[in-house]
């Protein structure tokens, strides 16, 4: 009798395991470090998608998904690798949303994701080098490569009539990749880059760096850095010494904390970060407001999309194992199929379960190209009267 009971219990466990499971998704972002002011809204975005799917109960026969947060630190590859390793071995996550900064993302991909066959979708790693990195079909990003951002910067500068710029970048994979992309695109369109030099984060004083930039000259200073770090220091130093008045701010620099810290000196500057005017963005921003966070910040929509893509692909492959659903991601992200906007994940899961096809548009107009990276839509912003306002989308 005892044995029969035990056997039934065991079978019951296995049976439920096969039908409804507890899926875990790791969210590895830099909750401390140079972009710590952006990551809370990013993680909240990913968790919003997870909550939506859980509420629908439609994923893989009523499986539930739980998020597992981890700190990538944005700059310390060893710490990020250790977190990813722990999530896979101890927390047993099924996929990872992350990492955030390009350097740690590359390290996590090569040292942890590939050896363990784990799907990783980064919402914010934008280094062009990641396009060609070996990834065994495991790595995707809902953020565009900076090669595209370089072209956008060149377009913006040309349209505003600037002919010569100085470029400074944070000394890592992200900064170097973006700065080179900007220089290449701007020079190809006939502009002049007077200097393209790096700065280190975490210093107290950037007057020497600003001195070199000022000596090289230029109408605009392009600061491919981080808003809570050296990027802020460079801008403050340039304004203090009167070296530059106008700054071009790429995605790592756009944020309310920069405007608050620098003050009126930043008025007249402009920049861009991945963003879209597709209906999805507005829907997402309302959903975020209802959930109590700001969904318009950089990379928050991309984070929602990254988590949503993972879960839709699981549904399409009928499995929560990375090896099974990694091939389904491109299919759910791109045409053909019914367009899916934020808030419609339940509908999408149902269509897929019924054998239909979806084209996930999401909050950031997801269109995966190449080896699985976003084609890239950008929101061009102006700093006016101490606030960031949208100029247009491109």
């Amino acid at each position, binding site marked *: 009798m005892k044995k029969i009971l035990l056997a039934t219990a065991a079978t019951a466990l296995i049976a439920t395991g096969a039908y409804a499971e507890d899926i875990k998704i790791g969210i590895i972002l830099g909750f401390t470090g140079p972009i710590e002011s952006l990551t809370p809204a990013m993680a909240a975005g990913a968790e919003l998608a997870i909550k939506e799917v859980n509420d629908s109960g439609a994923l893989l026969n009523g499986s539930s998904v739980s998020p597992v947060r981890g700190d990538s630190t944005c700059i310390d590859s060893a710490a990020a690798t250790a977190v990813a390793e722990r999530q896979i071995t101890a927390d047993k996550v099924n996929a990872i949303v992350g990492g955030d900064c390009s350097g740690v993302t590359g390290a996590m991909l090569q040292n942890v994701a590939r050896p363990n066959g784990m799907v990783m979708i980064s919402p914010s790693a934008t280094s062009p080098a990641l396009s060609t990195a070996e990834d065994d079909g495991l790595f995707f990003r809902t953020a565009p490569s900076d090669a595209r951002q370089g072209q956008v910067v060149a377009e913006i500068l040309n349209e505003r009539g600037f002919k010569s710029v100085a470029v400074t970048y944070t*000394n890592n994979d992200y900064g170097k990749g973006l700065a080179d992309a900007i220089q290449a695109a701007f020079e190809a369109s006939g502009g002049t880059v007077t*200097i393209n*030099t*790096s*700065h*280190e984060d*975490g*210093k*107290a*004083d950037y*007057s*020497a*760096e*600003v*001195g*070199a930039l*000022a*000596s*090289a*000259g230029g109408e605009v200073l392009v600061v491919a850095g981080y808003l809570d770090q050296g990027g802020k*220091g460079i801008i403050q130093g340039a304004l*203090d*010494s*009167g*070296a530059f008045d106008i700054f071009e701010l790429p995605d790592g620099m756009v944020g309310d904390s920069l405007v608050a810290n620098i003050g009126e000196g930043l008025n007249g500057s402009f920049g861009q970060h991945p963003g879209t005017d597709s209906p999805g963005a507005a829907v997402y921003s309302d959903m975020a407001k209802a959930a109590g966070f700001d969904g318009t910040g950089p990379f928050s929509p991309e984070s929602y999309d990254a988590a949503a893509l993972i879960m839709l692909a699981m549904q399409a492959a009928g499995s929560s194992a990375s090896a099974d659903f990694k091939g389904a991601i491109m299919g759910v992200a791109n045409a053909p199929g019914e367009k899916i906007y934020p808030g419609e994940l339940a509908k999408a899961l149902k269509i897929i379960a019924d054998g239909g096809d979806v084209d996930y548009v999401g909050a950031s107009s997801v269109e995966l190209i190449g080896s699985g990276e976003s084609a890239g839509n950008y929101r061009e912003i102006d700093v006016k009267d101490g606030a960031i306002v949208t100029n247009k989308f491109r």
Partner: protein
Amino acid sequence: MDFLNAIVAFSNFVLIPGVAFGSQLALGSLGITLIFGILRFSNFAHGDSMAFGAMVVILTTWWLQSMGVSIHPLPTALLALPAGIIASAAVMLGTDRLVYKFYRQQKAAPIILVMSSLGVMFIMNGIVRFIIGPNEQRFADGARFIVKAREFKTATGLSEGLSIKVSQGITVITAIVVVALLFWFLNRTRTGKSMRAFSDNEDLALLSGINPERVVMIVWVIVAILTTIAGTLYGLDKSFKPFTYFQLLLPMFAAAIVGGLGNPLGAIAGGFVIAFSEITVTYAFKKVATYVLPDSMAPDTLVQLLSTDYKIAVSFSILILVLLFRPTGIFRGQVV
């Protein structure tokens, strides 16, 4: 006109930042040199003592600001300096009682004192981060500029701007006042003379009835004054982040050694030598050269000796060169 532009550009990016940074380094290395001269060891905890003093000043400044106290256009932090000095002096005298006194009575070798100061450094470092956190803190208030770059341009009609920050002005003036007071104290007062006697020849000083513990106590109090002022000025002028004070240790030691360890005058000279070499070696002279030279000779390159990434390497190199060729330093201090 071109020549004036060149001078203004040079002052804006080299001369003024150099003088301000040099004063901050000089105040820091004065403390190092005093401890080396009188207590006879290299105090590695110096940078973090600066962070500790500045931290107390910042906390007091925030309290004063919340009470509505202000000495506009000067920063409130100046009012908070005494609190920082008292707290620093208490901590330093406490550390001396707990750590250094024991080794001093054992007549331990200097290297043992140096290593124990390394331990003190890590503890101070931890305490500061524990209390105020590892992040950047803002505490500067009052006016920001004496001369604004844009206003200077419109007033003079030159194409180059000149900016002088209030914090830079305060730094230089305070440094001059502090150094003058220190020299008056060392050269004119009875206590100062007894300190110099103790530094020159310990046994002779003991024989002539100088109380060593009193000399040691006064040294720590003076060092507390110097570190708190230097730390606060650096934080006001640049930014306060506990880790950057640890990084200041190398240029400060370089300044003390270049000037001649144990020689206060040398510490000041060394501070300016290090500050100006760091800035001139990494400054791109293109703009200045374009103004001064005729058009045909105008440079295409940046005319920069070293990229700014290598700034820290400059103090290293000077340190090594001085130790190789003139170990006593410019002003003939003691040999390490």
